[in-house]
């Protein structure tokens, strides 16, 4: 297994180690951890009594209270649960774009995924990984064991950018596969129809998942710095290209880009989805710090 240090710079790891990932809402889990669960069940910590109603399990009746009061009460316990996190990494062709840094958006996204895995595992929570383009390419369910982290790293290292993207279709396919509620980290450039994308994200929310989108962008996509005649070749569809004079084209492109990000931001706010912009020229530390500060603010 490749150690995390192969993928992350030591200073990045050091910085990450001190960060606390606080889940905004409790998730369902079987392993006791730092997160409170509102769900009552088998646990050692008593919560309260309540009157028996038809359908309650007989074994949960507190016979001592019955003896004292001659009434049927059942015992309720407060359990401690773990975080079930799932990292969805967009491995479509568009994520293969590399700007001046030489690092593709996919590589940057995977580094972030590794960081997230490291942090969550350190909290003894479980984390899974799913890569996709037009379909799900790899699915590693959440686990919390140390061995599991190695599996995740191996999968990350083997992930290569694929073909076209259809985020909404893939997300609709993914939702039924996540059997328990949890936290979904989506690492994608979101280059698809925003309206359809938001509908599919709403599907996650409907299934009571907490969703965080790391919007992975390259500086070139944001600033469009080209000036000479440029042949833009489609990363997702071989042979398709556009010959453009970027100088005269730039203003309109940036206008459309701003509209795109604005629509995405508004949609996410509407569905209570956290959207974290992430630029390939930025350090991961900065990106994660921004994310966690943002979460502590809203928690």
């Amino acid at each position, binding site marked *: 297994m490749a150690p995390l240090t192969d993928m992350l710079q030591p200073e990045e790891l050091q910085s990450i180690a001190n960060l606390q990932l606080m889940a905004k809402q409790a998730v369902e889990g079987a392993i006791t951890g730092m997160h409170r669960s509102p769900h009552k069940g088998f646990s050692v910590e008593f919560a309260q009594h309540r009157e028996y109603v038809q359908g309650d399990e007989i074994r949960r009746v507190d016979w001592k209270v019955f003896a004292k009061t001659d009434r049927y009460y059942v015992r309720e316990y407060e359990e401690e649960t773990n975080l079930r996190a799932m990292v969805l990494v967009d491995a479509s062709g568009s994520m293969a774009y590399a700007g001046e840094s030489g690092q593709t958006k996919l590589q940057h996204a995977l580094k972030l995924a590794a960081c997230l895995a490291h942090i969550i595992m350190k909290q003894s929570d479980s984390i899974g990984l799913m890569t996709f383009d037009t379909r799900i390419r790899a699915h590693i369910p959440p686990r919390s064991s140390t061995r599991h982290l190695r599996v995740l790293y191996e999968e990350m290292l083997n992930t290569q950018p694929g073909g076209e993207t259809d985020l909404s279709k893939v997300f609709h396919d993914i939702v039924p596969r996540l059997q328990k509620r949890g936290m979904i980290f989506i690492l994608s450039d979101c*280059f698809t129809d925003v309206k359809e994308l938001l509908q599919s994200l709403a599907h996650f929310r409907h299934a009571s998942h907490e969703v965080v989108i790391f919007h992975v962008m390259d500086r070139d996509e944001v600033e469009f710095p080209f000036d000479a005649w440029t042949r833009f070749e489609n990363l997702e569809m071989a042979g398709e290209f556009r010959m453009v004079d970027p100088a005269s084209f730039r203003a309109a492109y940036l206008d459309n880009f701003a509209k795109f990000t604005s629509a995405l931001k508004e949609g996410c706010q509407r569905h209570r989805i956290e959207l974290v912009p992430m630029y390939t020229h930025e350090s991961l530390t900065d990106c994660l710090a921004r994310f966690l500060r943002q979460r502590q603010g809203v928690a």
Partner: protein
Amino acid sequence: MSFMNLALIGGAAAAAIPILVHLISKSQHREVKWGAMHLIELTLKSQQRRLRFEHWLLMLLRCAIPVLLALCMARPILKGTAALWSNAKTSLLVVLDNSYSLDFKGAGGTNFEKARDTAAELVQELQRGSDVNIVLMSDPQSSLYDTAVFNTEAVAGELKSMQAGFGQAQVSTSLEHGAEQLMQMNHPHREMVLISDFQRISWPTEEGEAALRTRVGQQLQRMEMPPNLTLFHVGAEGRENVCVETVASSHLLLGVNQTVTIQASLRNYGERNHDALRVIFHADGKPVDEQQIPLGAGERRQVQFRHAFDAPGSHVVEVVTDADSLKADNVFRASIPVWDKVPVLVINGAPSTEPLKGETDFLQIALQPYREGREPELVDLLETRIIHVADFNAAAIGETRVVVLANVSQLQRSQLNELQTFVKDGGGLMIFGGDQVDQRWYNDQLLPYGLLPARLGEVADKQQDAEPFTRVVGQRFDHPALQIFSNPRNGDLASAEMRQWHRTVEDPDNDLVRTLARLETGDAFLIEKQYGNGRVLFCATACDDAWSSLPLRPVFVPLTQRLCTYLASSVMPPRNLGVSEKAVAHFPAAQAGREVVVTDTQNEQRALPIELRGGRGVATYEDTARPGLYTMQGPDGEAIHFVVNTRRSESDLKQLTSEERRAVAADMGAELVQDLDEYRQLDQTRRFGQEIWKPIFALVLFVLFFELWLERRMARQRVSG
């Protein structure tokens, strides 16, 4: 279109440079593997049309700049058929306004000096072999040469020594005359240049004259070889001018020692008020009286002077003011004949030996009241001689000024011819009706000869009616012969009872005939006709008391006196002339072959022969182009004065505005120029075409600025994004 530097047009090939730059930059493109293709697609979808348009526009502008620059440097010349004439000889016709309004002296000389110098310059600048003629606009329209001449130096010299005329400009007639001259000229390339001060009075903008000018202009364009018509404005507009408009005498016929009132009308066309304008009255060249009058801007005022001449003969009065620099209209002269006797020949158609029964007995008394009334102290002006019809002939006419036909039945053919000549030459004929009048002869002979104002109808007779008479309609008369009867104190024409009279058939379309007075029945009482230089008056009733009580009424005397003096006042060739009108004097036939001496306005004398014409001696002097006094001395020493006055319509020096001049030129299909340089430029354009490098250069600058603006606008779009 042609080019002065044709080789430089090759520079237009530089238009390929922007295209090549575009193609090269497009071929040296970079390749980018791009993820956000949907954004590029979206942008292309919304911006492609605009971007494509802007790119094409920019490309077009960048290509246009070298093309236009090359065009500019090649100095293109726009021309139609002008190229055919570029080296051709020219036929130049100058229509020169020499009306006296151009005598106005502004800064740098008179307007006419400017006009003639301009014409001389135009002539001098003609190519060798060109021909030229000059038409003068002042009436009568005349050309300087009978046919076009080739010696342009001589023409220029003659122009430079020319003096302003004193007539009125006749625009359309001059142009027509010019067109006739042009047809006789030699070269196919023809120029007609009209040089004028565009005085408003000569260039009216009213429909009639304007339409006439336009028509003449169009006719010129339709000529087989149409000329280039150019209107050349010269001269400053005179702001101040006072003129003596008219001088009128109170007497139709003036006798010795009779006091005449001379009434002069002065008008101020200027904008300055004159508080005390000096007006001087001269009689026979000597100052007699002087008045000072106020004359406000735009005002007209009358001044009266009284004078009596103590000797018969030709006399001259003049009214002078010294208001301004346009001298020609500051003086108005009048030639006034003073008569010792005015011979009247009365032909008696019904003589009688009984007192007051003859046809002319009352008339004789009325025409010579002092002699008949045995008043030795007083002298009749009219000297009446009564003859029978059979005695009427040329010899009987002699010096007669008025012939009266009193109830004359008819005349012999020879008599009729003599009478016709007499009237045509300016004699006065008075015809009274009566029972002896042969209506048929009058209608068949006298009428066709032009000596009867209206065809005679039946004789009206009121004697059998309940009211056995009618009267002359009392009215206000404006005719000079009857004007005094507008005042009842001078006599009442309606006091006479008319029992019988000749009805007449009037011709309302004949402008030469005018009814002066009517009877209450509506029939004409007095009819006047102009014939030749003379006049005919027809009285519908008789001059004795057989048909009316008119001879018995006091009004008969002044009436017959006025009618005869009125007729006699035109007895002579006119002596008050317009500019360039002929001065004609009659002499006895016996003096034919002898000479008269004419002294002109410059005191130069010239002898003229007396020619025998129509049974009398006639002397004619034609050179009356300058206003002033011309004196003709007859063989027996008698002086006859002719005065020439300018037409006062030219005294209003207002010119057309520049807008109006442009409109006139446009209507006539002409070009309008203000100075020689402008004309030369126009001529250059007509001959060689119009150089258009300046507008092209302006276009280059515009395209450059537009390209710069477009480029910056597109750059701003990039930056703002």
